[in-house]
């Protein structure tokens, strides 16, 4: 995916002005930035939900799956059907069953297939949403602060579940978050928005994800840099 000279404004507020970046295939790019800095606009442009005022968004990846801030599950069908229904356009029944079950099992939801969203906790609902995002045959995954409303323990648990699924089948991913720690622990690269023309920061993290530790001096320095940029704004 590549943004070339993308401009987007809402009324008088310029979010992007000839903004460019290229996304590396099968990696996770964390995106942080101040409120109104264009994080959600970037995701919506990438998903094709909105069009740029000028410039182009080129997408080599075909289908897109989106993990929203809230789980957005269908309230009137059970966990199983919530995943299965998103595969109907692509697979026959047998294949749908296999795929949906596989990802729900990986998301540790196999025991709750028959439950309805209102019968699940917030964390369980988000796990179903994660399973749905991975089950969908998408090459591009867009995550819009999907763990933000959860407590720290649950958040770490879900991040682990997410990364397990991601490592099993790598997809090009944009992960928007306002949590700098989360951005550093998950991303192969961290992009900090804030200036409509160019990112405030665009750095690659070369430490393998599995070896990352929040107390690592390099990561702490990166976090401090991000913190400085975001508090400056």
């Amino acid at each position: 995916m590549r943004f070339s000279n993308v401009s987007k404004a809402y009324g008088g507020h310029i979010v992007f002005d000839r903004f460019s970046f290229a996304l590396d295939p099968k990696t996770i790019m964390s995106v942080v930035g101040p409120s109104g800095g264009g994080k959600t606009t970037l995701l919506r442009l990438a998903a094709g939900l909105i069009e740029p005022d000028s410039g182009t968004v080129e997408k080599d990846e075909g289908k897109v799956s989106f993990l929203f801030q809230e789980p957005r599950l269908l309230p009137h069908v059970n966990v199983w059907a919530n995943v299965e229904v998103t595969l109907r356009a692509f697979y026959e029944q047998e294949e749908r069953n296999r795929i949906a079950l596989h990802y729900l099992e990986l998301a540790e939801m196999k025991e709750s297939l028959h439950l309805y969203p209102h019968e699940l906790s917030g964390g369980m609902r988000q796990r179903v949403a994660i399973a749905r995002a991975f089950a969908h045959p998408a090459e591009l995954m867009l995550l819009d602060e999907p763990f933000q409303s959860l407590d720290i323990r649950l958040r770490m648990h879900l991040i682990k579940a997410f990364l397990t699924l991601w490592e099993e089948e790598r997809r090009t991913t944009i992960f928007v978050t306002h949590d700098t720690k989360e951005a550093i622990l998950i991303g192969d690269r961290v992009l900090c928005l804030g200036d409509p023309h160019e990112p405030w920061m665009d750095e690659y993290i070369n430490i393998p994800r599995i070896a990352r530790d929040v107390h690592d001096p390099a990561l702490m320095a990166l976090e401090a840099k991000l913190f400085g940029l975001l508090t400056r704004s």
Partner: protein
Amino acid sequence: MNRTKRNLILLFSSLGLLLLWQGIAKSVDIPVIMPSLGPIFRALGFLAGGPSFPLNLLATILRALRSFIIIVISGTVLGLIGGRNQTVSLILKPFVTTLKATPVMSVILLAFIWFSSGSVPLFSAFLMGFPVMYLQIEHGVRQLDPNLGEMCDLYDIPPKAKLFYCALPSLAPWFVAGSKATLSMIWKVVIASEVLTVPRYGVGSRMQLAQVQLQTDVVLSWTLIAIALTALGDLFFEGVVSLVVRTRSTVQRRRVDALLKRF
């Protein structure tokens, strides 16, 4: 609150209502103005055993059902369009607002002037019931979660699945609430129209006749029958909703069980 407790409270409040009636009837002590419960229930038994009772009841039910079907279809279709299209909603707004504010009796009297007596209940019930159904559906469409719609589009959920898994279940509570409110409105309007137009058969015609003959207990008996019709309508809808929810839940659970056995 559990079901038993709820039912007990309802039972006692209903008994309280009957006792209040009986108390007032006893203190007034003029049966032609306020008959006590005994004569009312005796009159009810007598009516129910009479040869023309099924004909009168059926005539009213058929009039109400005919109006109901027309209102449900037209109110739902136009409500779906009005909920999605602001121009249609604005075109219908003066019509709906006027009807909502018009007294039932004005509509019935005008209908009686304009049409033959047979068409009055149908016409009046339509004009009074249509806004109820239309507004419920229009409101329901506007309450549909746009986030869910966006999710369905992003995940390429086919239109048929989107309709049955997302749109229809979300609209169902509005449809049921609209249908219940419309039907209870229709009973009132149809019976009022019958009172005024006095067709050969109908609950309203019998009430009118009893009123002329100062048979207050008979008027009240027919009133009880009208109340029972409304209550049965509500029970019917609650039964249908409960059946649909249980069936849906069972079907989905069976699918999951079958799946777990296979994989």
